[in-house]
């Protein structure tokens, strides 16, 4: 980057001012940035409302946003080659941290997910959402397409080792998310349709085994999902209250900060996992449609970047990130609207929380880096 020859020699005069050169060379994607900013703006409004108008909660998230912006811009300046070089190390570190969590992790709500460091704590499983597509893209980038049996087998090992470690924490939501992300990468890598069907069959066959391995509370969640009224004050409570919040919002919603479910504390976890229910209650179907449009636009932009990318590693990385982003969105909304069991999965970019936000901004930074690589 240091020896990069000056570009845009024919640029207008004002661009020759000192510092402008740096800005002009900055890796940047205005569309993606605009969409992310819109999502973060929606997030701030919802967190403010959901926290009972506590400015301090919003302030904390503001700090998370600032950190994540810095990280986003910094990551965007790298070359995709660097990511490819780092991939195996990051993956190895991720696996190591997952093992550390299993042994030393801090429990929170019945699951060991956190590593406490002086000053802050973080969830290695969040980071794995990113490290897995990196590693897979790295591994598959020099394999001939369509994929042969052995690469597919190795890929499955790369996918399932972190996936099962996370599920063991137990964090079923993130585990499924990580595994689904791996399959997304395989899909974009051009695995044969027949292999896709075979793998799907394998996964379906594995479901009863999974049920047997589940913790009691996870089984209860699944049972509750199938019939929430079974236990209206216990584990079904979250789903019922969330559905009431969304349903009572109607077409136009009850208005910002006027959702009774959210403001009177009927809605659980409303700044984090259930923030979508706050949106549904206060902004109604129209607000939800706009949010869906934003997410679709982000995903569309990502897919566009993928198709415009020539090298296999970058292409698979973008595909993996975008697919992971979508699955996260899908699981969260499916969960809070009662389509899927409650598994504990934040809404990307919108839910309160630093780890998830920074992870996604790192991912989008990589997207920008890839999108901008041809400029150099």
């Amino acid at each position, binding site marked *: 980057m240091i020896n990069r020859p000056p570009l845009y020699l024919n640029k207008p005069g004002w661009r020759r001012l000192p510092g402008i050169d740096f800005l002009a060379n900055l890796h940047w994607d205005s569309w993606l940035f605009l969409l992310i900013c819109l999502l973060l703006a929606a997030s701030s409004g919802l967190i403010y409302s959901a926290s009972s108008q506590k400015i301090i909660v919003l302030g904390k998230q503001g700090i998370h946003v600032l950190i994540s912006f810095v990280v986003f811009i910094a990551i965007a300046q790298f070359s995709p080659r660097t990511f490819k070089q780092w991939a195996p190390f990051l993956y190895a570190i991720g696996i190591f941290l997952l093992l550390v969590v299993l042994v030393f992790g801090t429990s929170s709500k019945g699951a060991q997910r956190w590593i406490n460091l002086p000053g802050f704590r973080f969830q290695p499983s969040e980071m794995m959402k990113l490290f897995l597509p990196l590693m897979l893209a790295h591994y598959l980038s020099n394999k001939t397409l369509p994929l042969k049996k052995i690469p597919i087998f190795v890929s499955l090992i790369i996918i399932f080792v972190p996936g099962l470690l996370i599920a063991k924490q137990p964090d079923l939501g993130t585990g499924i998310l990580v595994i689904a992300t791996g399959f997304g990468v395989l899909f974009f890598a051009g695995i044969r349709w027949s292999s896709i069907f075979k793998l799907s069959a394998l996964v379906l066959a594995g479901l009863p085994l999974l049920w047997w391995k589940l913790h009691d509370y996870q089984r209860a969640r699944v049972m509750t999902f199938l019939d929430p009224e079974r236990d209206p004050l216990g584990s079904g409570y979250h789903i019922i209250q969330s559905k009431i919040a969304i349903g009572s919002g109607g077409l136009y919603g009850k208005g910002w900060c006027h959702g*009774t479910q959210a403001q009177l504390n009927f809605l659980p976890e409303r700044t984090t996992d259930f923030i979508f229910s706050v949106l549904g209650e206060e902004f109604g179907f129209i607000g939800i449609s706009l949010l869906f449009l934003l997410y679709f636009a982000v995903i569309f932009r990502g897919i566009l970047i993928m198709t415009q990318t020539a090298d296999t590693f970058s292409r698979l990385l973008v595909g993996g990130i975008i697919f992971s982003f*979508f699955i996260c969105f899908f699981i969260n909304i499916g969960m809070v*609207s009662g389509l899927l069991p409650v598994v504990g999965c934040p809404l990307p970019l919108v839910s309160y929380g630093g780890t998830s936000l920074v992870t996604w901004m790192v991912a989008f930074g990589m997207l920008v880096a890839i999108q901008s690589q041809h400029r150099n």
Partner: protein
Amino acid sequence: MKQQRQPFLAQTDERFLTRQRALVGIVLIGMMILVLLGRVAYLQIIDHQKYATLSKRNQFHLSPIPPNRGLIYDRQGKLLARNVPAFHLAIIPEQVPDLTQTLDELEKIIPLEPQQRQAFLDKMAHHASHQRQILKFKLSEEEMSAFAVNQYRFPGVFLQVELIRDYPYGPLLAHILGYVSEANKEDLIRIDKKRYAGTFQLGKVGLEKYYEDSLQGEPGYQQIETDVLGREIRVMSTLPATSGADLHLTIDVELQEVITKALGNNRGAVVVLDPRNGEILAMVSVPSFDPNQFVRGLNQQAYQLLRQAADRPLFNRAIQGQYPPASTIKPIVALAGLSTQTINPQQRVFDPGFYQLNGAGRLYRDWQENGHGWTDLEKSIRESCDIYYYMLAEKLGIGQLSSWLSQVGLGKATGVDLPGEQIGLVPSSAWKKKALGTVWYPGETLITGIGQGYILATPLQIATVASYIANRGVAFRPHFNKDAPIENLTPLKIDNPNHWNTIIEPMRQVTQNSHGTAFRYFSGLAALNVAGKTGTAQVFGLKANEKYEHDAVARHLRDHSLFIAFAPADKPTIAMAIILENQRASAGVARQILEAYLTGSYHDQSSSPLS
């Protein structure tokens, strides 16, 4: 061919594959987003109404406002039952810094029973700490003022006000008004809980129970916004409560006081009716109890003490006490004899002091050891000759006897608007066969003729008999509610109305003739023209040759003394019955009552405890 083209196509293949997978991917993702959108549309548009309702139910809490219970007045407009504020000691646990210390400190100024403290701690354990709990109900005035000056020391502890029932006349009207009290388990099953929301106090006995429906009123509601823990956020709207309807009674509370005073420490009952319409002017049953202690909550021990007291203060003798009416029914038996032409007024019977069926066997004694000698109808009532009525009863037979006694309301409910009325008993051979499984003996007919034996009546029924005679065959349903319609009881029709005068004249003589059984009690009262009849009810049967010595037998086995009266005899405005348990001289008490009522002298007394 294919083998050769493979390397050539590799580049384009990958581009094609990428585009294809991207397209499939975006379409799949788009479809899945549409599934989510469909799900949300289902919740927000199709099922919106359902969830909006559920959300409202979450958000709002209806808090009942108890209605003011209807007031009760006497016939002069004196307030007999009112609602007064009571102060409860309440605690909001979450506002109390140190609960144990606070309770200890509170106990120093307001005595608490150990179970009160325990009950409070139990309640606290089962409710959220922001919910107010009552530590002690209905503080006394001293406790209230003791707390008021110390309140600053007890954050989170305060007085909670509630309207409770109060009976200013206390025991004087306890048997009539009854009382309201906390609903018990059976009540809670029976009542419409919505109507009692916020109070759960209801009429347990007496008029409070009988007129519960109209006295209670309808509760109002406050719609309160609450959070998930039930904490009140704000009041959204209020629907005021509808007070219960006031009740105006036929009772004259001053007369009630006169009677109660006249009865003194005796056990007994008095019923005073207006024979012209059935209005109950007074109904006294002594001893009585203080109904206010039930409102304020009676502990189990005190309640058992009241319930098991030997003189049964909770028992309303006027409508629940069943006594042999004794000689008070003699005028009716005489009327039966006249109307059936079994006797005529001039016919005389010799009374040697005893009577024998068919001139042999058991002796049925007269109350006067040596008998009354030759006795006609007039004398038989005036001097209460038993032999005359043994003879008459034998002639009438039990069938006719019980039929005539039934026609003046004995053996059936009067229909008074007070719960718990007993119906007494008019025996007949059919009754005896059914109830006791034995045949009717002729001797039993004789004693029925003088109101003894199986026959039983409540003081209210006996007063109704007096009112039948006073009104010459017409009587009205006795009632307390002044606004209730006047209802006729089945009239007693006889062929020759002159027979009424034939029995009323000797009743007049009972008080006014020097041979009258009540003459000595009514001396100097001739101007009021009282007609009456005495009666003495045996509590236990004497053996054939036994003599009754009032002072010689145990108190609870002594005879009851009865008296019925109405006045003025020619145009009665008052009819009454009195019974004194194990006591004599009920006519003397009756005289005080009649004199006070007919001269109106009692109105001069200042009787209102409210003034």
